[in-house]
Protein backbone atom coordinates (compact mmCIF):
# COMPACT_ATOMS: atom_id res chain seq x y z
CA UNK A 1 0.00 0.00 0.00
CA UNK A 2 2.71 2.55 -1.03
CA UNK A 3 -0.22 4.70 -2.18
CA UNK A 4 -1.42 5.34 1.38
CA UNK A 5 1.88 5.94 3.17
CA UNK A 6 3.41 8.43 0.65
CA UNK A 7 0.33 10.69 0.87
CA UNK A 8 0.04 10.55 4.65
CA UNK A 9 3.73 11.32 5.25
CA UNK A 10 3.45 14.34 2.97
CA UNK A 11 0.38 15.70 4.73
CA UNK A 12 1.18 14.88 8.32
CA UNK A 13 3.74 17.66 8.30
CA UNK A 14 1.20 20.37 7.46
CA UNK A 15 -2.01 19.18 9.18
CA UNK A 16 -2.94 20.88 12.48
CA UNK A 17 -5.76 19.93 14.83
CA UNK A 18 -8.63 22.01 13.37
CA UNK A 19 -9.31 25.44 11.84
CA UNK A 20 -11.13 27.69 14.39
CA UNK A 21 -13.58 30.32 13.45
CA UNK A 22 -12.08 32.91 15.91
CA UNK A 23 -8.44 34.00 16.40
CA UNK A 24 -6.60 30.86 17.39
CA UNK A 25 -4.39 31.14 20.50
CA UNK A 26 -1.07 29.79 19.25
CA UNK A 27 0.78 27.47 21.63
CA UNK A 28 4.50 27.92 21.16
CA UNK A 29 5.57 25.36 23.72
CA UNK A 30 4.01 22.12 22.43
CA UNK A 31 5.09 19.30 20.07
CA UNK A 32 2.38 20.11 17.52
CA UNK A 33 3.45 23.70 17.15
CA UNK A 34 7.11 22.74 16.75
CA UNK A 35 8.29 22.58 13.09
CA UNK A 36 8.66 19.15 11.39
CA UNK A 37 12.18 17.73 11.35
CA UNK A 38 12.62 17.64 7.54
CA UNK A 39 10.39 17.52 4.50
CA UNK A 40 9.91 14.21 2.66
CA UNK A 41 9.76 14.37 -1.12
CA UNK A 42 6.71 12.52 -2.47
CA UNK A 43 7.53 9.97 -5.19
CA UNK A 44 4.15 9.87 -7.00
CA UNK A 45 3.03 12.72 -9.29
CA UNK A 46 -0.04 14.61 -8.15
CA UNK A 47 -1.62 17.96 -8.96
CA UNK A 48 -2.78 20.47 -6.40
CA UNK A 49 -6.18 21.99 -7.19
CA UNK A 50 -7.47 25.05 -5.35
CA UNK A 51 -10.82 25.10 -7.14
CA UNK A 52 -13.41 26.78 -4.82
CA UNK A 53 -16.19 24.78 -6.52
CA UNK A 54 -14.77 21.50 -5.28
CA UNK A 55 -13.98 22.99 -1.88
CA UNK A 56 -17.69 23.77 -1.54
CA UNK A 57 -18.36 19.99 -1.58
CA UNK A 58 -15.73 19.46 1.12
CA UNK A 59 -17.39 22.12 3.28
CA UNK A 60 -20.71 20.36 2.76
CA UNK A 61 -19.19 17.08 3.97
CA UNK A 62 -17.64 18.64 7.08
CA UNK A 63 -19.84 18.78 10.22
CA UNK A 64 -20.87 22.05 11.86
CA UNK A 65 -19.18 22.86 15.17
CA UNK A 66 -22.24 24.58 16.68
CA UNK A 67 -25.89 23.53 16.66
CA UNK A 68 -27.61 25.75 14.02
CA UNK A 69 -30.43 28.07 15.14
CA UNK A 70 -33.93 27.10 13.89
CA UNK A 71 -35.40 29.29 11.13
CA UNK A 72 -38.86 30.77 11.61
CA UNK A 73 -41.37 28.93 9.39
CA UNK A 74 -45.12 29.26 9.14
CA UNK A 75 -45.78 25.56 9.91
CA UNK A 76 -43.81 22.78 11.56
CA UNK A 77 -45.35 19.44 10.48
CA UNK A 78 -43.35 17.34 12.96
CA UNK A 79 -45.19 18.81 15.96
CA UNK A 80 -42.08 20.60 17.24
CA UNK A 81 -42.65 24.26 18.18
CA UNK A 82 -39.95 26.91 18.67
CA UNK A 83 -39.77 28.81 21.95
CA UNK A 84 -41.45 32.22 22.05
CA UNK A 85 -39.07 35.19 21.75
CA UNK A 86 -40.17 37.55 24.57
CA UNK A 87 -39.61 35.47 27.69
CA UNK A 88 -38.07 38.23 29.79
CA UNK A 89 -41.15 39.10 31.81
CA UNK A 90 -42.28 35.50 32.53
CA UNK A 91 -42.05 34.46 36.20
CA UNK A 92 -40.08 31.33 35.22
CA UNK A 93 -38.59 29.78 32.09
CA UNK A 94 -37.80 26.22 31.05
CA UNK A 95 -34.83 26.95 28.82
CA UNK A 96 -34.57 24.82 25.66
CA UNK A 97 -31.68 22.41 25.36
CA UNK A 98 -28.92 23.20 22.86
CA UNK A 99 -30.84 20.92 20.45
CA UNK A 100 -33.89 23.24 20.86
CA UNK A 101 -35.95 20.55 22.62
CA UNK A 102 -37.98 20.82 25.85
CA UNK A 103 -35.82 19.36 28.68
CA UNK A 104 -38.41 17.00 30.23
CA UNK A 105 -37.13 13.44 30.67
CA UNK A 106 -38.36 10.09 32.00
CA UNK A 107 -35.98 8.19 34.30
CA UNK A 108 -36.71 4.48 34.79
CA UNK A 109 -34.88 2.77 37.67
CA UNK A 110 -35.23 -0.08 40.13
CA UNK A 111 -35.66 -2.52 37.23
CA UNK A 112 -38.59 -0.66 35.73
CA UNK A 113 -40.57 -0.11 38.96
CA UNK A 114 -39.64 3.52 39.65
CA UNK A 115 -40.58 6.01 36.88
CA UNK A 116 -39.70 9.63 37.65
CA UNK A 117 -40.14 12.66 35.42
CA UNK A 118 -37.37 15.29 35.45
CA UNK A 119 -37.88 18.89 34.32
CA UNK A 120 -34.42 20.44 33.87
CA UNK A 121 -32.89 23.83 32.99
CA UNK A 122 -35.47 25.83 34.97
CA UNK A 123 -34.74 29.52 35.49
CA UNK A 124 -36.70 32.00 37.55
CA UNK A 125 -39.31 31.12 40.19
CA UNK A 126 -39.01 27.34 40.48
CA UNK A 127 -41.47 26.94 43.32
CA UNK A 128 -44.21 28.73 41.41
CA UNK A 129 -43.62 26.39 38.46
CA UNK A 130 -43.84 23.39 40.76
CA UNK A 131 -47.18 24.50 42.19
CA UNK A 132 -48.66 25.06 38.74
CA UNK A 133 -47.37 21.70 37.50
CA UNK A 134 -48.84 19.84 40.48
CA UNK A 135 -52.17 21.61 40.03
CA UNK A 136 -52.25 20.67 36.35
CA UNK A 137 -51.16 17.05 36.87
CA UNK A 138 -53.38 16.48 39.91
CA UNK A 139 -56.48 16.84 37.75
CA UNK A 140 -55.56 13.75 35.74
CA UNK A 141 -54.08 11.41 38.32
CA UNK A 142 -56.02 9.80 41.17
CA UNK A 143 -52.89 9.52 43.35
CA UNK A 144 -51.44 12.65 44.98
CA UNK A 145 -48.58 14.06 42.87
CA UNK A 146 -45.32 13.81 44.80
CA UNK A 147 -42.58 16.15 43.59
CA UNK A 148 -39.18 17.42 44.75
CA UNK A 149 -37.53 20.75 43.87
CA UNK A 150 -33.75 21.10 43.64
CA UNK A 151 -33.35 24.86 43.66
CA UNK A 152 -29.58 24.86 43.25
CA UNK A 153 -29.54 22.86 40.03
CA UNK A 154 -32.95 24.10 38.78
CA UNK A 155 -34.52 20.63 38.48
CA UNK A 156 -38.00 19.42 39.45
CA UNK A 157 -38.45 15.68 39.99
CA UNK A 158 -42.01 14.33 39.85
CA UNK A 159 -43.06 10.79 40.73
CA UNK A 160 -44.77 9.08 37.79
CA UNK A 161 -44.56 9.26 33.99
CA UNK A 162 -45.90 12.76 33.10
CA UNK A 163 -43.41 13.71 30.39
CA UNK A 164 -45.84 14.36 27.55
CA UNK A 165 -48.37 15.98 29.92
CA UNK A 166 -45.74 18.49 31.09
CA UNK A 167 -44.60 19.15 27.50
CA UNK A 168 -48.23 19.91 26.58
CA UNK A 169 -48.54 22.19 29.66
CA UNK A 170 -45.36 24.11 28.76
CA UNK A 171 -46.35 24.47 25.11
CA UNK A 172 -49.77 25.71 26.17
CA UNK A 173 -48.06 28.41 28.27
CA UNK A 174 -45.97 29.02 25.08
CA UNK A 175 -42.70 28.38 26.83
Amino acid sequence: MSLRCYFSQLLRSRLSAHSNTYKNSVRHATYKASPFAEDIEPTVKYEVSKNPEEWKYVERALPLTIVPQPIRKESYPSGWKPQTEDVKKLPYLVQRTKNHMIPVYLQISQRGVRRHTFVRKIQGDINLLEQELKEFLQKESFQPIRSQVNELTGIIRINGDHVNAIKYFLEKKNL
Partner: protein
Amino acid sequence: MSNTTEKALNLLRYLPRVCISNIRDNPGAHKQARRGRGQHGGDYHGAGNKGAKARQSYTRLGYEMGNNPFYLRFPFEPYYKGHHLKRQYPPVSLLNLQKLIDTNRIDTTKPIDLVAIMNTGLFRLYPDQQHFGFQLTDEGADIFSAKINLEIQWTSEPVIAAIERAGGFVTTAYYDAQSLHAMINTKKFFERGIPIPRRMMPPPDAIEYYSNPANRGYLSDPEKISKERLVLAQKYGYTLPKLDDQILEMLKERKDPRQIFYGLHPGWVVNLTDKVILKPLDEELKEYYAS
Protein backbone atom coordinates in the same frame (compact mmCIF):
# COMPACT_ATOMS: atom_id res chain seq x y z
CA MET B 1 -39.78 36.85 41.79
CA SER B 2 -37.28 34.43 43.35
CA ASN B 3 -34.54 33.54 40.88
CA THR B 4 -32.14 31.13 42.44
CA THR B 5 -29.13 32.12 40.36
CA GLU B 6 -29.65 35.84 41.01
CA LYS B 7 -30.21 35.15 44.71
CA ALA B 8 -27.02 33.08 44.90
CA LEU B 9 -24.93 35.68 43.04
CA ASN B 10 -26.24 38.51 45.28
CA LEU B 11 -25.52 36.43 48.36
CA LEU B 12 -21.94 35.92 47.15
CA ARG B 13 -21.38 39.69 47.14
CA TYR B 14 -21.57 39.79 50.92
CA LEU B 15 -19.82 36.51 51.70
CA PRO B 16 -16.06 36.25 52.14
CA ARG B 17 -14.03 35.56 49.00
CA VAL B 18 -14.47 32.01 47.74
CA CYS B 19 -11.14 30.21 48.10
CA ILE B 20 -9.92 26.64 48.26
CA SER B 21 -10.34 26.43 52.03
CA ASN B 22 -13.95 27.52 52.30
CA ILE B 23 -15.70 25.33 49.67
CA ARG B 24 -16.89 21.74 49.96
CA ASP B 25 -18.79 19.17 47.89
CA ASN B 26 -22.41 18.12 48.55
CA PRO B 27 -22.77 16.14 51.79
CA GLY B 28 -22.70 12.41 51.10
CA ALA B 29 -21.02 12.80 47.71
CA HIS B 30 -17.98 10.77 48.80
CA LYS B 31 -18.54 7.53 50.69
CA GLN B 32 -15.66 6.31 52.89
CA ALA B 33 -13.99 3.40 51.08
CA ARG B 34 -12.36 2.20 54.25
CA ARG B 35 -12.78 -1.46 55.30
CA GLY B 36 -13.59 -2.37 58.90
CA ARG B 37 -10.06 -2.95 60.29
CA GLY B 38 -10.50 -2.34 63.98
CA GLN B 39 -11.79 0.03 66.67
CA HIS B 40 -15.46 -1.11 66.23
CA GLY B 41 -14.94 -1.82 62.53
CA GLY B 42 -13.46 -5.23 63.51
CA ASP B 43 -15.16 -8.30 65.13
CA TYR B 44 -16.92 -9.85 62.09
CA HIS B 45 -15.73 -7.01 59.83
CA GLY B 46 -19.31 -6.42 58.66
CA ALA B 47 -19.70 -9.96 57.26
CA GLY B 48 -22.26 -11.13 59.83
CA ASN B 49 -22.15 -14.42 61.71
CA LYS B 50 -21.19 -17.64 59.90
CA GLY B 51 -23.06 -18.88 56.92
CA ALA B 52 -22.51 -18.25 53.22
CA LYS B 53 -22.37 -14.48 53.80
CA ALA B 54 -19.36 -14.72 56.12
CA ARG B 55 -17.66 -17.53 54.27
CA GLN B 56 -18.45 -16.03 50.86
CA SER B 57 -19.68 -19.44 49.76
CA TYR B 58 -22.86 -18.59 47.85
CA THR B 59 -23.82 -21.08 45.12
CA ARG B 60 -22.89 -20.08 41.58
CA LEU B 61 -25.36 -18.27 39.32
CA GLY B 62 -27.90 -20.67 37.77
CA TYR B 63 -27.13 -23.61 40.13
CA GLU B 64 -30.25 -25.17 41.64
CA MET B 65 -28.71 -27.48 44.29
CA GLY B 66 -28.33 -30.35 41.84
CA ASN B 67 -31.78 -29.92 40.28
CA ASN B 68 -31.69 -29.77 36.49
CA PRO B 69 -30.98 -26.00 36.16
CA PHE B 70 -33.50 -23.80 34.37
CA TYR B 71 -31.01 -22.61 31.77
CA LEU B 72 -30.08 -26.19 30.78
CA ARG B 73 -33.55 -27.71 30.86
CA PHE B 74 -34.65 -26.74 27.37
CA PRO B 75 -33.55 -28.06 23.97
CA PHE B 76 -31.42 -26.03 21.59
CA GLU B 77 -33.08 -23.44 19.36
CA PRO B 78 -31.03 -21.60 16.67
CA TYR B 79 -32.32 -18.14 17.72
CA TYR B 80 -28.98 -16.42 17.20
CA LYS B 81 -27.91 -18.39 14.13
CA GLY B 82 -25.87 -16.21 11.75
CA HIS B 83 -26.48 -13.07 13.85
CA HIS B 84 -22.92 -11.94 13.22
CA LEU B 85 -23.26 -12.28 9.45
CA LYS B 86 -26.56 -10.52 8.76
CA ARG B 87 -26.34 -6.85 7.84
CA GLN B 88 -27.89 -4.39 10.31
CA TYR B 89 -29.42 -0.97 9.57
CA PRO B 90 -30.13 1.27 12.60
CA PRO B 91 -33.53 2.92 12.05
CA VAL B 92 -34.27 6.58 11.29
CA SER B 93 -38.00 7.33 11.31
CA LEU B 94 -39.70 9.80 9.00
CA LEU B 95 -40.83 11.65 12.15
CA ASN B 96 -37.17 12.05 13.20
CA LEU B 97 -36.26 13.25 9.75
CA GLN B 98 -39.11 15.79 9.73
CA LYS B 99 -38.09 17.05 13.18
CA LEU B 100 -34.46 17.47 12.02
CA ILE B 101 -35.68 19.45 9.02
CA ASP B 102 -37.98 21.60 11.17
CA THR B 103 -35.20 22.44 13.62
CA ASN B 104 -32.85 23.28 10.74
CA ARG B 105 -30.38 20.50 11.68
CA ILE B 106 -30.52 19.18 8.11
CA ASP B 107 -30.28 21.55 5.14
CA THR B 108 -32.99 20.60 2.64
CA THR B 109 -31.52 22.81 -0.12
CA LYS B 110 -28.82 20.15 -0.52
CA PRO B 111 -29.17 16.40 -1.11
CA ILE B 112 -29.35 14.47 2.19
CA ASP B 113 -27.16 11.39 2.56
CA LEU B 114 -25.56 9.42 5.37
CA VAL B 115 -22.92 12.14 5.84
CA ALA B 116 -25.60 14.80 6.45
CA ILE B 117 -27.43 12.58 8.95
CA MET B 118 -24.21 11.75 10.83
CA ASN B 119 -23.15 15.43 10.85
CA THR B 120 -26.19 16.31 12.99
CA GLY B 121 -24.34 14.46 15.75
CA LEU B 122 -27.55 12.77 16.97
CA PHE B 123 -27.03 9.29 15.46
CA ARG B 124 -24.42 6.59 16.04
CA LEU B 125 -23.23 4.00 13.56
CA TYR B 126 -20.74 1.19 14.19
CA PRO B 127 -19.62 -0.36 10.86
CA ASP B 128 -17.42 -2.87 12.70
CA GLN B 129 -20.62 -4.31 14.26
CA GLN B 130 -22.18 -5.04 10.85
CA HIS B 131 -24.03 -1.69 10.69
CA PHE B 132 -24.24 -0.90 6.97
CA GLY B 133 -26.04 2.44 7.17
CA PHE B 134 -29.53 3.63 8.15
CA GLN B 135 -32.98 2.29 7.29
CA LEU B 136 -35.93 4.63 6.98
CA THR B 137 -38.97 3.50 8.96
CA ASP B 138 -42.50 4.60 8.30
CA GLU B 139 -43.35 6.13 11.69
CA GLY B 140 -44.67 9.64 10.94
CA ALA B 141 -45.23 8.86 7.23
CA ASP B 142 -48.57 10.69 7.10
CA ILE B 143 -47.21 14.00 8.47
CA PHE B 144 -44.04 14.00 6.34
CA SER B 145 -44.10 16.95 3.97
CA ALA B 146 -40.62 18.08 2.85
CA LYS B 147 -39.18 18.17 -0.67
CA ILE B 148 -35.87 16.39 -0.19
CA ASN B 149 -33.40 14.40 -2.25
CA LEU B 150 -32.69 11.59 0.21
CA GLU B 151 -30.13 8.81 -0.10
CA ILE B 152 -30.60 6.01 2.46
CA GLN B 153 -29.31 2.44 2.71
CA TRP B 154 -32.59 0.53 3.16
CA THR B 155 -36.25 1.41 3.10
CA SER B 156 -39.73 0.01 2.46
CA GLU B 157 -42.42 0.83 -0.05
CA PRO B 158 -44.77 2.96 2.13
CA VAL B 159 -41.82 5.14 3.08
CA ILE B 160 -40.89 5.71 -0.57
CA ALA B 161 -44.53 6.60 -1.23
CA ALA B 162 -44.57 9.10 1.66
CA ILE B 163 -41.45 10.90 0.41
CA GLU B 164 -42.54 10.99 -3.20
CA ARG B 165 -46.02 12.18 -2.31
CA ALA B 166 -44.36 15.12 -0.53
CA GLY B 167 -42.50 15.89 -3.78
CA GLY B 168 -39.08 14.44 -2.98
CA PHE B 169 -36.78 11.74 -4.35
CA VAL B 170 -35.27 8.79 -2.50
CA THR B 171 -32.52 6.41 -3.57
CA THR B 172 -31.18 3.39 -1.73
CA ALA B 173 -27.40 3.05 -1.90
CA TYR B 174 -24.96 0.47 -0.55
CA TYR B 175 -21.81 1.45 1.33
CA ASP B 176 -19.12 -0.99 2.37
CA ALA B 177 -17.55 -0.78 5.83
CA GLN B 178 -14.44 1.14 4.76
CA SER B 179 -16.40 3.92 3.08
CA LEU B 180 -18.74 4.05 6.09
CA HIS B 181 -15.77 4.65 8.35
CA ALA B 182 -14.84 7.59 6.12
CA MET B 183 -18.37 9.02 6.11
CA ILE B 184 -19.10 8.71 9.81
CA ASN B 185 -16.50 11.20 10.94
CA THR B 186 -15.51 13.15 7.84
CA LYS B 187 -13.26 15.64 9.66
CA LYS B 188 -11.26 12.87 11.29
CA PHE B 189 -11.02 11.08 7.93
CA PHE B 190 -9.78 14.14 6.05
CA GLU B 191 -7.27 14.82 8.78
CA ARG B 192 -5.77 11.37 8.26
CA GLY B 193 -4.67 12.58 4.84
CA ILE B 194 -5.37 9.38 2.91
CA PRO B 195 -7.08 9.19 -0.49
CA ILE B 196 -10.89 8.94 -0.48
CA PRO B 197 -11.62 5.17 -0.80
CA ARG B 198 -13.45 3.72 -3.78
CA ARG B 199 -16.95 2.48 -2.91
CA MET B 200 -17.29 -1.29 -3.40
CA MET B 201 -20.06 -3.06 -5.28
CA PRO B 202 -22.80 -4.59 -3.07
CA PRO B 203 -22.40 -8.27 -2.09
CA PRO B 204 -24.29 -10.88 -4.20
CA ASP B 205 -27.31 -11.06 -1.88
CA ALA B 206 -27.72 -7.24 -1.95
CA ILE B 207 -27.14 -6.57 -5.68
CA GLU B 208 -30.68 -7.69 -6.47
CA TYR B 209 -32.18 -5.19 -3.97
CA TYR B 210 -30.06 -2.23 -5.12
CA SER B 211 -30.65 -2.82 -8.83
CA ASN B 212 -34.42 -3.10 -8.44
CA PRO B 213 -36.17 0.15 -9.52
CA ALA B 214 -39.06 -0.57 -7.12
CA ASN B 215 -36.60 -0.02 -4.23
CA ARG B 216 -35.14 3.05 -6.07
CA GLY B 217 -31.79 1.25 -6.08
CA TYR B 218 -28.77 3.29 -7.15
CA LEU B 219 -27.79 0.63 -9.67
CA SER B 220 -31.22 0.54 -11.38
CA ASP B 221 -32.23 2.23 -14.61
CA PRO B 222 -33.53 5.88 -14.14
CA GLU B 223 -36.33 5.45 -16.72
CA LYS B 224 -37.62 2.40 -14.88
CA ILE B 225 -37.51 4.41 -11.65
CA SER B 226 -39.73 7.16 -13.10
CA LYS B 227 -42.15 4.46 -14.29
CA GLU B 228 -42.15 2.94 -10.80
CA ARG B 229 -42.90 6.38 -9.35
CA LEU B 230 -46.11 6.48 -11.40
CA VAL B 231 -47.00 2.92 -10.42
CA LEU B 232 -46.55 3.78 -6.73
CA ALA B 233 -48.56 7.01 -7.11
CA GLN B 234 -51.53 5.03 -8.48
CA LYS B 235 -51.14 2.30 -5.88
CA TYR B 236 -51.18 4.70 -2.92
CA GLY B 237 -53.65 7.10 -4.56
CA TYR B 238 -51.76 10.35 -4.72
CA THR B 239 -50.65 12.49 -7.65
CA LEU B 240 -46.95 13.22 -8.16
CA PRO B 241 -46.57 16.99 -7.44
CA LYS B 242 -45.14 19.21 -10.17
CA LEU B 243 -41.49 20.00 -9.34
CA ASP B 244 -40.54 23.69 -9.42
CA ASP B 245 -37.31 24.14 -11.30
CA GLN B 246 -34.98 25.83 -8.84
CA ILE B 247 -34.96 22.78 -6.59
CA LEU B 248 -35.28 20.40 -9.54
CA GLU B 249 -31.55 20.88 -10.08
CA MET B 250 -30.81 19.71 -6.49
CA LEU B 251 -33.34 16.88 -6.67
CA LYS B 252 -31.58 15.43 -9.71
CA GLU B 253 -28.12 15.24 -8.06
CA ARG B 254 -26.93 11.65 -7.70
CA LYS B 255 -23.67 10.00 -6.71
CA ASP B 256 -21.58 7.79 -8.98
CA PRO B 257 -21.64 4.12 -7.74
CA ARG B 258 -17.94 4.53 -6.89
CA GLN B 259 -18.35 7.89 -5.12
CA ILE B 260 -18.69 8.43 -1.36
CA PHE B 261 -19.06 12.19 -1.08
CA TYR B 262 -21.02 14.42 -3.41
CA GLY B 263 -18.64 16.17 -5.79
CA LEU B 264 -15.44 14.48 -4.52
CA HIS B 265 -13.99 11.63 -6.60
CA PRO B 266 -12.31 8.59 -5.05
CA GLY B 267 -8.53 8.91 -5.02
CA TRP B 268 -8.51 12.60 -4.15
CA VAL B 269 -6.74 13.66 -0.97
CA VAL B 270 -8.29 16.56 0.95
CA ASN B 271 -5.90 18.82 2.87
CA LEU B 272 -7.83 20.76 5.49
CA THR B 273 -5.05 23.09 6.59
CA ASP B 274 -4.12 24.43 3.15
CA LYS B 275 -7.74 24.06 1.86
CA VAL B 276 -6.46 22.19 -1.16
CA ILE B 277 -7.36 18.94 -2.96
CA LEU B 278 -4.56 16.69 -4.28
CA LYS B 279 -5.49 14.69 -7.35
CA PRO B 280 -3.36 11.75 -8.57
CA LEU B 281 -1.91 12.10 -12.09
CA ASP B 282 -0.59 8.57 -12.33
CA GLU B 283 -2.26 6.66 -15.20
CA GLU B 284 -2.44 3.47 -13.22
CA LEU B 285 -4.02 5.25 -10.23
CA LYS B 286 -6.53 7.06 -12.36
CA GLU B 287 -7.61 3.90 -14.08
CA TYR B 288 -7.87 2.09 -10.72
CA TYR B 289 -10.11 4.75 -9.21
CA ALA B 290 -12.24 5.18 -12.29
CA SER B 291 -13.03 1.51 -12.90
